């Protein structure tokens, strides 16, 4: 990195800007779709798909109130930090067959940590607001973060390990590599089952990571009046909204990279620009499907769980599922 | 004890409490529906001294369902009506019993019934706050309805000088008059 030519740097910056822009736009766009679909499932017309954009622009002109108990520079800094971090994650993500902007050692672990930072951002923001509701919300977010970390990490490590067994010399944790070698191809029947378990784990971690129903205890509308965002208004709220949107993209693409990194361009013997276009489109399609399954549908088809139920669900059953998946994959490798 | 008809209940009261205790008693029977099926309401007016034992007696018949206490400011006295119903949970059996008693304004005191029927607490506190009746034996709880800083000695449902005198008239009286 530090030995990078000036031109390369320049291009990277351009790319960074583009990706940031794309990420935000896509995020809001998919949020719109999510809301629309949810509405349709509830037999409503629902808001227009561009609604999230309007919400954003509206919030940008709203007055930005800082409660007197809050520590202003933290209170205002956190939303920006959260947004920046979640955009940074995008730079490590290959889209279709376009290689990621940044890449180095263990991107995926880096991503896991960056995701943590976004959650921590919310937590600190909540605490910084100095309202009891926000504090309770922040504590819940904290508890949840710790709870879903184990299953998430298990999934990531398990897949990395499998790859490392097959290709010892590759730089395993770089997403590009994982993207290039789908897990399903590497494992036998046992491992296949394991991989499925791992997918389930990740699919259930995702709504928690995005704190969507049934895991939205931290922001429980009817209990905590908006939870850790209760004191936020105007610009800060808008930024949090963006961060949330981007985070959704990130989490879902994570699922895609780990489990469905397939491209279709080569099927049509395409190459060059067309390949890129086709694959990107295909990627968007995958994004849409996974979002529908992991976010929208679960969101509308479940009631909110209590925090202790959430934490139990992640610590015990889900962790067990994850570890089981790992065990199966290991077994698969040892036996074969 | 076994089911008693309204008149039997009144008799029971007359028997258990001494004659003078029951100032006035009447049994209403009402009909309903096409079949003109009958249900009855008992009105008993009881001397203040015997009031508590009347309630006790009532409780011996069956743990009564306590509804509410109505109050009325009649000149020198305040009339309280305790609305009960017994023999509920059985078709056509339920009987409403209304125990009336009058408290002289000189000495507004009445024993609490919360020791027998905890559910009556809200109602008693309400009466206390609305009519300034001292409920003896009711733990001195904070006002449930009136604020702490509510004007002392003002009891909204009183008709005498202790009631709220000026009320906020409809806000655009003025407009109307013009």
């Amino acid at each position, binding site marked *: 990195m*530090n030995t990078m030519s000036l031109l390369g740097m320049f291009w990277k910056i351009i790319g960074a800007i583009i990706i940031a822009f794309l990420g935000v736009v896509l995020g809001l766009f998919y949020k719109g779709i999510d809301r629309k679909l949810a509405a349709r499932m509830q037999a409503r017309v629902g808001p227009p798909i561009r609604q999230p954009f309007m919400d954003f622009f509206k919030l940008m002109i709203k007055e930005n109130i800082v409660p*007197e*108990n809050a*520590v202003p*520079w*933290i209170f205002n800094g956190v939303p920006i930090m959260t947004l920046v971090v979640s955009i940074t994650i995008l730079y490590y993500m290959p889209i279709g067959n376009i290689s990621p902007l940044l890449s180095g*050692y*263990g991107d995926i*672990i*880096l991503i*896991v*940590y*960056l995701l*943590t*930072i976004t959650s*921590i951002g919310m*937590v*600190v923001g909540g*605490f*910084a607001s*100095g309202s009891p509701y926000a504090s309770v919300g*922040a504590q819940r977010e*904290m508890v949840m*973060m*710790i709870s879903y*970390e*184990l299953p998430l*990490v*298990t999934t990531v*490590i*398990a897949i*990395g*390990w499998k790859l*490392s067994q097959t290709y*010892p*010399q590759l730089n*395993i*944790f770089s997403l590009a590599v994982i993207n290039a070698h789908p897990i399903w191809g590497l494992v036998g029947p046992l491992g296949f089952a394991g991989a499925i378990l791992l997918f389930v784990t990740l699919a259930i971690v995702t709504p928690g990571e995005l704190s969507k129903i049934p895991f939205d205890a931290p922001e429980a509308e009817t209990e905590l009046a908006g939870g850790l965002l209760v004191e936020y208004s105007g610009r800060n709220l808008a930024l949090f909204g963006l961060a949330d949107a981007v985070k959704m993209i990130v989490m879902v693409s994570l699922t895609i990279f780990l489990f469905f990194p397939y491209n279709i361009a080569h099927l049509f013997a395409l190459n060059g620009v067309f390949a890129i276009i086709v694959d990107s489109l295909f990627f968007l399609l995958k994004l849409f499907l996974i979002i529908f399954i992991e976010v929208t549908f679960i969101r509308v088809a479940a009631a909110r769980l209590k925090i202790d139920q959430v934490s139990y669900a992640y610590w015990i059953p889900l962790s067990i599922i994850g570890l089981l998946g*790992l065990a199966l994959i*290991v077994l698969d490798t040892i036996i074969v | 004890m076994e089911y008693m008809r309204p008149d039997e209940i009144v008799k029971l009261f007359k028997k258990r409490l001494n004659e003078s205790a029951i100032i006035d008693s009447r049994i209403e029977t009402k009909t309903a529906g096409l079949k003109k099926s009958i249900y009855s309401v008992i009105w008993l007016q009881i001397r203040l001294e015997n009031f508590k034992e009347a309630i006790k007696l009532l409780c011996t018949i069956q743990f009564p369902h306590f509804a509410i206490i109505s109050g009325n400011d009649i000149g020198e006295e305040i009339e309280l009506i305790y609305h009960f119903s017994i023999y509920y949970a059985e078709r056509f059996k339920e009987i409403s019993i209304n125990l009336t008693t009058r408290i002289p304004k000189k000495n507004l005191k009445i024993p609490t019934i919360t020791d027998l029927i905890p559910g009556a607490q809200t109602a008693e506190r309400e009466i206390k706050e609305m009519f300034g009746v001292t409920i003896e034996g009711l733990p001195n709880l904070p006002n449930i309805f009136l604020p702490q800083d509510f004007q002392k000695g003002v009891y909204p449902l009183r008709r005498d000088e202790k009631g709220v005198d000026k009320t906020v008239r409809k806000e655009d009286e003025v407009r109307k008059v013009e």
Partner: protein
Amino acid sequence: MNLSNHIPILIIAIPLLAAFLVPLIGRINKKATGILTTLALSVSLILTIALAVKILTVGPQVYVFGATSPSLTLPSGLKFPIRIMFQIDAMSIFMGLITAIISFVGAIYSLAFMEHHSGLDKYYSLLLLLTVGVFGIEFTGDMFNLFVFLEIASIAAVALISFRGVNLGEPAEAGFKYMVVSSIAALIVLFTVGIFYGEYGLLNFAALASVIKYSQLDKIALGLLVPVLAMKAGAVPMHMWTPDAYSEAPTPITIILVSASQASLYVLFRVTFSLYNITLNTLAVGWIIIIFGVLSMFIGVTMAIIQKDIKRLIAYNAISQTGYMLLGVGVGLAVLANPVALSTYGITAMEGGIFHLINHAMYEGLLFLTAGALFFRTGTRDLDEMGGLAHSMKYTTIFFIIGAAAISGLPPFNGFASKLLIYESVYRFNPLLSIIAMLVSILTLASFVKVFHGAFLGPKLPKFEEVREVPQSMVWAMVVLSCITIFFGLFPDLIVKNLVHPAVMALIEQFKYTGTVLGGI
């Protein structure tokens, strides 16, 4: 015979001299003591850096006291190193750097922090002695001097831990605990010295390493050394002394104590790698160390989360961080005998562990310093007492955030760099290890969010109305550490390539180590 050959002794000698000068100066002027100490330590810092450059470019250096060659020719014509000597290779100087930086920072910090205490002259001379001891442990080339320096350090440390007053309960207790622990350690070391001398008639590491044959006695020696050194390093389950000592000692001392424990960690590595190396059953010993590591990580952090005393909390986290180093190096040791595994991930793991050593010293120091700053202003270490300090102590808050982020391994701070190395190598040895490691760092994060919320966030408390930012010197001390923290975080490959990797290699390649001494013979 230019001066540069004498740097090693100078590094030790200057603080030592200063240590004896300080009381004299103290008679004239209290203030001067601090200044003198700082000067002395700064000089030795500069020298250390110079030496580091030399060693990393030229190669290991052997400094023999009172002669040019360590060896002494017996009438029989047999040659073996017998003289007192320092043997400084990449690993030792790596440790030396840590100590130099930390002690220097500690000295600066003390200037303001200890201002209002009495008996400053004692304090400073003890501080210097402690530093000398630590330096010695890291530089010495033979077992016996190891014991000597160990003792020097321990005694100084004990005095310093209970410096806040023997009549006060906790400091005395903490000091006593430390005394017991370190004297046991010293005795055991002395015992092993006896064993080795009895068996081989040698004390010099290199010489020993060249002849050691992992006999029954050696096994015993190892079995004695490993736990004892782990204890000195504060690894679970022999960690009971750490929280007390760390939290009760004056903050500048605390951070030097951290580097002292790391020194004994260094000795542990030195013994296992340079002394025994592949002669021993690496897998078994490796696993033992790994288990020490995992236990420390997990128990340390879980204990940390429930603490109310900010310094104790950080201390427990220190324990759990020690676990990471043990884990990384332990994996390295476990696969030492297996060149393929070693080359694919063993070395990376060790790099992670060693790199974490210096990172840990930096951010742990930073955190302790911020904790000290809070104590300095609020006069309490109880989290429930504090609150809303971010309003008034902005810099401290920022430093704390940096430190906390680093210790919980959040990018882009140095903690992440080293932990990443550990994760992405250890999981190949055993995936579960990585999972635990990552989980632990999240828990660490949780514990620090708790501190952050408790101490800094929230409404301004009336009782802390007059609280303001800490004095210059303390701020600067923290600035130094946070700069290093961030720098290491941003350019990890630079550090790893130039500083850490050589150190790791120095550990792994035993023959080099022996060669430097015996080669001259």
